[in-house]
């Protein structure tokens, strides 16, 4: 299939790595039966995506970069002992986790506890099957990729609940209940936001969405800023990152569903937390930020390099929020999901559906007119967020500008220290 994006189909054209893999597969097809070559093709895709994306992201950005950045945010150095600048820290961590003793509590359910890490890891690998790394670099180019992604990203919640239930520990059970409740609460606004994207693009295939954004020279993040904001907040909550990590809040419930895990099984949970964050970042980069296209730059720069860069820059925002925001309480999080995010997501859906109908009827489905909706949606986003926050009781003008004493703010001071009187 000749594509206008690529200059050549030669194997040495590394702007599209599928050229190279096709060379290997065509030569293998001459000596091996077809069935085995079919399996090798998937293995090749797995190894390639592992080498160009998962390994550098997981080790350098995920483990090392996250600890280093959070260290700098909190005025410390972060890892700096193992290797130059501490760059070998993730490898040292992996070796340590492999060697650690794997404790199994006597009261725990052996089968459920041992299967849970496997079920937690497998969906993360499967999520990358539908992420397009280039015009032809995609493992499973299925037409219902968006539904597939939503469905598979719901599976780790089951594994986390299995881990919490099988551990037979009170803290694990509380953590498991919390992770299920929070994931399903934030799933609703998240999928409503993605519904708005489907309304505009008219396709469920992620590759189709990238082509839509590339043809119109616009990112959906600009056309639908509210969908993008809802996606970012909701996916951050589903991933249990720090502003919303009530499922493993160590000051309340020791480590949540991971309390009884140690050794490599704990390491799989820890590593795949980063893996899911990377998968969500790659999904956001694909759906909202243009995927492997970058306003014509994808003719010259390899497309797979563009999406890896976008994913890691998006992941940096996750690290930033993790380093700067304090943890929220469980009641605040639930109220935020159901009372704030869900109503504005429904309002967003109404507006986007109306715009889509206007687009088809009034503008005769002319694709250029998507730019008309950019300022409208930006104004709508600012308006609806502010108006709904006011409706729910947000009063910024009542916030005190300077520091007050406790008794001036109406607080309670024990031991008779009221009326501004100072005690020795």
């Amino acid at each position: 299939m000749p594509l206008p994006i690529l200059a050549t189909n030669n194997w040495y054209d590394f702007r599209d790595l599928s050229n190279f893999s096709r060379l290997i597969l065509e030569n293998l097809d001459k000596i091996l039966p077809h069935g085995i070559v079919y399996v090798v093709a998937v293995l090749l895709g797995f190894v390639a995506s592992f080498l160009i994306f998962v390994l550098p992201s997981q080790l350098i950005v995920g483990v090392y970069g996250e600890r280093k950045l959070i260290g700098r945010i909190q005025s410390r150095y972060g890892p700096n002992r193992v290797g130059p600048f501490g760059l070998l820290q993730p490898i040292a961590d992996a070796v340590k986790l492999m060697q650690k003793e794997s404790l199994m509590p006597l009261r725990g359910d052996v089968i459920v506890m041992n299967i849970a890490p496997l079920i937690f890891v497998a969906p993360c690998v499967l999520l990358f099957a539908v992420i397009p790394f280039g015009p032809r670099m995609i493992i499973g180019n299925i037409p219902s990729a968006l539904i597939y992604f939503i469905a598979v990203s719901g599976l780790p919640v089951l594994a986390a609940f299995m881990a919490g239930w099988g551990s037979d520990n009170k803290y694990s059970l509380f953590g498991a209940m919390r992770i299920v409740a929070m994931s399903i609460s934030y799933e609703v606004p998240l999928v409503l936001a993605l519904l708005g994207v489907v309304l505009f693009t008219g396709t469920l295939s992620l590759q189709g969405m990238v082509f839509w954004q590339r043809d119109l020279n616009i990112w959906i993040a600009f056309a639908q800023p509210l969908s993008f904001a809802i996606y970012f907040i909701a996916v951050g909550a589903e991933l249990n990152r720090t502003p919303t990590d009530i499922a493993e809040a160590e000051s309340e419930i020791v480590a949540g569903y991971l309390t009884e895990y140690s050794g490599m099984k704990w390491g799989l949970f820890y590593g795949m937390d980063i893996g899911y964050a990377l998968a969500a970042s790659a999904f956001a980069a694909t759906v909202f930020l243009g995927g492997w296209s970058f306003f014509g730059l994808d003719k010259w720069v390899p497309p797979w390099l563009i999406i890896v860069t976008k994913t890691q820059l998006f992941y940096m925002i996750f690290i930033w929020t993790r380093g700067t925001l304090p943890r929220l309480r469980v009641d605040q999080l639930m109220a935020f999901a159901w009372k704030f995010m869900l109503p504005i997501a429904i309002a967003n859906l109404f507006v986007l559906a109306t715009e889509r109908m206007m687009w088809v009827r009034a503008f005769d489905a002319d694709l250029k007119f998507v730019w008309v909706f950019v300022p409208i949606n930006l104004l709508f986003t600012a308006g609806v967020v502010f108006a709904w926050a006011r409706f729910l009781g947000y009063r910024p003008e009542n916030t005190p500008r300077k520091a007050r004493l406790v008794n001036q703010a109406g607080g309670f001071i024990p031991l008779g220290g009221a009326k501004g009187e100072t005690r020795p």
Partner: protein
Amino acid sequence: MLHEYGNIGILAIIALIFPAGAVVTSWAMTFMGMRPKVFQDPVKKDTYECGVRTEGESLVQFNFRFYYIALLFVLFDVEIIFLFPWALEMAKLGWRAYFEGLGFVGILSLGILYAWRKRALEWR
């Protein structure tokens, strides 16, 4: 088209072998002398509870609000599954599909207003 789903099926097998390999390698290191022998100790293998002996059953009572949340989630998740085909085809079907789809969302929004009014969303 169907072989794309086959790719994902093969990837599912790889995805299960990958974590199992990590756990099995970690377990096999015991026999290669790279990992200490595990000492069986009833105190060490007891359930963790802040350093003291475990009291009672672990399947304790939890907040009944989780039940409300699950019910509301089922309501909205089923709604959204119906809305995906609508979102794909709304522009072709015209104004009638538009009003029907948004009417459906509106009726379900009355459901969450009812739950809100009945204080099912308060967490205390």
